[in-house]
């Protein structure tokens, strides 16, 4: 069970974070170009998948409008329906040697993890990384001065968090 590398992109395509643990082959181009190529590939795959998909990405909506007898019941059913209706789209792809896992947040943040073939589903790992990074990032005393799309400067905490998570869940 190995994890090769992790990329985090923002919604504009800038690479906010990259780390590698066990990469045996470099891409043969500079890191900048590699990030652009990776982002471009993911963007194309997403557009390819939405056109090629034989069914709509949204599940069919069976919920009827319920009368608001209680505001909290109505609100919670709305929130549940929002989570059910959120499409996932492209999840992962595999080649003969590695598997790329993809997770996109509603805010457009993209998490890309390359692992070997024995890891079938890293989606919850990526979701945990997202929630933990968001938590540590927004709670750091300096974070108020960092714009959301700048490179994640708290790299020490990010390394610590991701390493811990990955070692617990994958190794």
């Amino acid at each position: 069970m190995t994890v090769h590398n992790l990329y985090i992109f923002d919604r504009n395509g800038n690479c906010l974070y990259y780390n590698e643990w066990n990469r045996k082959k470099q891409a043969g181009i500079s890191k900048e170009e590699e990030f652009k190529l990776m982002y471009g590939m993911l963007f194309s795959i997403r557009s390819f998948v939405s056109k090629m998909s034989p069914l709509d990405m949204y599940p069919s909506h069976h919920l009827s409008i319920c009368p608001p007898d209680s505001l909290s019941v109505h609100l919670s059913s709305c929130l549940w329906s929002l989570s059910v209706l959120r499409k996932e789209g492209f999840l992962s792809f595999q080649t003969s040697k590695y598997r790329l896992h993809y997770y996109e947040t509603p805010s457009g943040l993209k998490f890309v993890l390359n692992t070997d073939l024995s890891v079938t589903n890293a989606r919850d790992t990526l979701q945990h990384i997202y929630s933990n990074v968001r938590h540590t990032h927004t709670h750091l005393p300096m974070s108020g001065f960092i714009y959301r799309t700048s490179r994640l400067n708290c790299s020490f905490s990010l390394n610590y968090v991701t390493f811990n998570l990955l070692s617990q869940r994958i190794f």
Partner: protein
Amino acid sequence: MVIYSVYVVNKAGGLIYQYDNYVPRAEVEKTFSYPLDLVLKHHDEKVVVSFGQRDGIRVGHAVLSINGVDVIGKNTSDGKDILEYLKDPSNYPVSIRFGRARLSSNEKLMLASMFHSLFAIGSQLSPEAGSSGIEMLETDVFKLHCFQTLTGIKFIVLADPRQSGIDALLRKIYEVYSDFALKNPFYSLEMPIRCELFDQNLKSALEVAEKAGNFGAGS
């Protein structure tokens, strides 16, 4: 437990064969009165819903027919522009059928070439040496399987995510290709495949795979 379609791509990235085995068409037909509460717009030679999703009619669905008569691109069958037709209150009440737009053959060509490039980039960005291109691409709605032969031909199958036995199916399609397309004296390499026996045998191979896949998943 379904196989949706099969694509065969040559080594230059051009689509040489395409077969849709099962095309689920979620279509909704409704009668509307003036004014239309959906916002429609032109997109790629079709009229699609851009806002106002309701009752099974989703954003991105295209207008398929008006009053039971299929539309042709942006115009009705009489040649009138659809948006102009729907702005006129005297044409109401009107019954419009919406649904997921079918892929035109041009779009299929473009998608096949797009996948050909993505396949190559998947191999280039590999963190491990000696990787092939994308062999399986998974989404929540379908799984795309690709088998590239030593001569560069790619056989692509789109199936349900739970369908099993697709690897065997891809090898079988390769066998059918070499038996009924390559051995056909009138077939030229890398050209679109127009061989009846290839079509027939491909269909039966798909039927066998779907039935075998059902057994595999049930046990």
